C-alpha cells in the first residue's frame, strides 16, 4: 500500500509537470491550428532562466546577509552560474529562500512569456493555415534556440538543488512522500483550476472556447482573433516555461536535451486528450504521469514504448482523442 501511495504521488507530480507543457500545446494547436515544435525549447528556456536567476539572486542575497560566504564553482559560458557556500551552520531565513525561489520563477516565466510573444509576432503570425511551413519554422526555432542555450550556458549539465524548504521526505506508514512532489501536484492543480476558471468565467475564456471551434466565425462577430492568438501563444509558452523551471529542481540537474524529451510527452498527451481539450490535457497528463512511474518501476525498459503504445491505440480507435474535436483549418 505504501509503495502504491508513493508511486501515485510521484506519478501525479510527473503528470502535473507534463500538464503545464501539454495545456498550452493543446490550446495552441486546437485554437490556432499551429503544430508547435518549439514548445520544448520554451520549456528548456524556462528551466535555464530559472536556474540562472535562482543562482544569481541567491548569490547576491547570501553575500549580502553573510559577507564571509564563499562563492563556489561556476558553470556556463556567456552567462555564468555561480553557486555559493554558506558559512558553517548558517541558514537563510525561510522568507528569504521563498522570495528567491518565487523571484526566480517569475523571471523564468516572464522570459518565456516574452519569447512566446516575439515568436508569435515574428514567425508564427506568418504561417497560420500553412502546416508544412509551421512545422519547418517551429523546428527551426527549436534547433536554433536549443543551441543558443548551449552557447549561453555551456553544453555540460550542471546541478540544481530544490529550494531548502521543499527538500526532504516524509514517511507516512510505509509510504515515502517527497515534499517537492507534493508541491508540484499543488502547483499543477492550482494552475489547472485557474485555467478552468478563466476558460469558463471570463470573456477571454469565452473567446478562446469559441476560437477553438472556428476562428473565422469569431472574426465575423467583430473580434480580433489574431490578438487572442498572440495572448494564447504567449500564455501557453509561459506555462511551458513554468514547467521547465519546476522540472529542473525535480531531476536535480540542468541539461539541454530536457526540452525535446518533455515535448514528446506533451504531444502524446495532446493526442490522447484531444486537440484543444483542456480536460483532455489535464486527464491525459495525469494518466501519462502515473502510468510512466508505474511502468518505470515494473518494466523499466518499456516506459517509452508504453507511452507510444497508448498513443497508437488512441489514434486507431479514437483519432480525435478522448475529449477532443475534429481538426479544422483556420486563418
Amino acid at each position, binding site marked *: 500500500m505504501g509503495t502504491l501511495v508513493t508511486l501515485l504521488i510521484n506519478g501525479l507530480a510527473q503528470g502535473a509537470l507534463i500538464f503545464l507543457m501539454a495545456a498550452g500545446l493543446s490550446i495552441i494547436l486546437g485554437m490556432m491550428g499551429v503544430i508547435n515544435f518549439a514548445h520544448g525549447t520554451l520549456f528548456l528556456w524556462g528551466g535555464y532562466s530559472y536556474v540562472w536567476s535562482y543562482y544569481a539572486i541567491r548569490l547576491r542575497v547570501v553575500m549580502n546577509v553573510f559577507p564571509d560566504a564563499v562563492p563556489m564553482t561556476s558553470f556556463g559560458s556567456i552567462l555564468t552560474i555561480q553557486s555559493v557556500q554558506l558559512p558553517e551552520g548558517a541558514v537563510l531565513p525561510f522568507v528569504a529562500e521563498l522570495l528567491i525561489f518565487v523571484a526566480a520563477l517569475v523571471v523564468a516565466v516572464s522570459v518565456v512569456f516574452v519569447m512566446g510573444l516575439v515568436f508569435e509576432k515574428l514567425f508564427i503570425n506568418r504561417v497560420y493555415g500553412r502546416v508544412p511551413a509551421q512545422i519547418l519554422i517551429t523546428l527551426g526555432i527549436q534547433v536554433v534556440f536549443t543551441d543558443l542555450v548551449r552557447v549561453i550556458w555551456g553544453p555540460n549539465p550542471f546541478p540544481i538543488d530544490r529550494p531548502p524548504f521543499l527538500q526532504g521526505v516524509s514517511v507516512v506508514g510505509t509510504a515515502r512522500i517527497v515534499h517537492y512532489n507534493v508541491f508540484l501536484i499543488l502547483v499543477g492543480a492550482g494552475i489547472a483550476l485557474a485555467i478552468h476558471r478563466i476558460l469558463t468565467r471570463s470573456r477571454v475564456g469565452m473567446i478562446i472556447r469559441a476560437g477553438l471551434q472556428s476562428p473565422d*466565425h469569431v472574426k465575423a*462577430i*467583430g473580434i480580433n482573433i489574431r490578438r487572442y492568438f498572440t495572448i494564447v501563444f504567449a500564455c501557453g509558452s509561459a506555462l511551458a516555461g513554468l514547467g521547465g523551471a519546476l522540472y529542473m529542481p525535480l531531476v536535480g540537474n540542468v541539461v539541454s536535451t530536457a526540452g525535446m524529451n518533455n515535448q514528446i510527452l506533451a504531444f502524446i498527451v495532446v493526442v490522447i486528450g484531444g486537440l484543444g481539450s483542456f480536460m483532455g490535457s489535464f486527464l491525459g497528463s495525469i494518466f501519462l504521469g502515473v502510468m510512466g512511474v508505474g511502468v518505470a518501476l515494473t518494466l523499466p525498459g518499456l516506459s517509452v514504448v508504453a507511452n507510444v503504445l497508448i498513443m497508437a491505440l488512441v489514434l486507431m480507435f479514437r483519432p480525435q482523442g478522448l475529449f477532443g474535436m475534429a481538426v479544422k483549418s483556420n486563418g
Partner: protein
Amino acid sequence: MQPLLKAEHIVSYIGPYTILHDVSLEVQRGEAVVILGRNGAGKTTFLKTIMGLVNTREGVLELDGESLVGQPTHLIQRRGIGYVPEDYGVFDLLTIEENLRIAMWKEDAPTLERRDYVLDLFPDLKLAYKRFAKTLSGGQRQMLSVARALVNDNLILLVDEPSKGLAPVIIEKLALALQQISSHTTVLLVEQNFALACAVGQRFYIINEGRTVETGTVADLIKDKELQALHLGI
C-alpha cells in the same frame, strides 16, 4: 440617394479560383433585398466577400460610402454589419447566453434591450438560455445565429440561406421573424427557398456563375414565370 451598401463589378477569389466575376448590387437604407440563384452561383461567396472572409481582387465595395475592400473581418463587422453565416456559426462550446454575450460590442442598456427583444422574438432561446449550443436543434441554432447578429446596433443584416436544412414549420417561424426584423433593419438575404425570399424581400438580384444577371422588384419576379424558370429552375 447614397446606397447603404454598394457593390460594383466585384471580382473575388478563393486560392487560385475566381468565384465572383462581376457582381454589382445596391441596398438602400431600410430595404430588404434578396439574392437568388442556383447552387454554386456565388451567393454565399458574395456575402463572405462583403465580410472580408473571401478576398476581393477588383471592384468597389462600400458601406455607407466607405470602402470595405482590404479591411479585416472584425473591423468590417464593427462598421455595422450583422452576419448570419450559412452554417449558423454558432459556438457549440458556449451556452446560448454566452453566444449572445460574446457578440455584444458592449453590455450597455440599449444592447441588453436588443438582447431581450431577440429573446422575445425567439422564445425557444429564452427557454434554453443556459444550455450549451451543441444541444440545440438545427432550427434553434439558426434562431441563435440570427439573434446573435441582432444584439448590436447594426446598419445592415446579412443572412445566408437561413432555411437550409430546416423543416417547413421552422421555416415559417423564421419567415415571420425575418419579416419583423426587416420592418426596422436593412436586410440582405441570400435564399434558395423562393417562398421565404418572396415573404421577406422587396427587391431581388439574381446571381449566376459569379455574375449579377437580373434585378427588379420581388412583386415583378413573382409574376415572371419565365425568369423563374430560366435562373431559378422553378
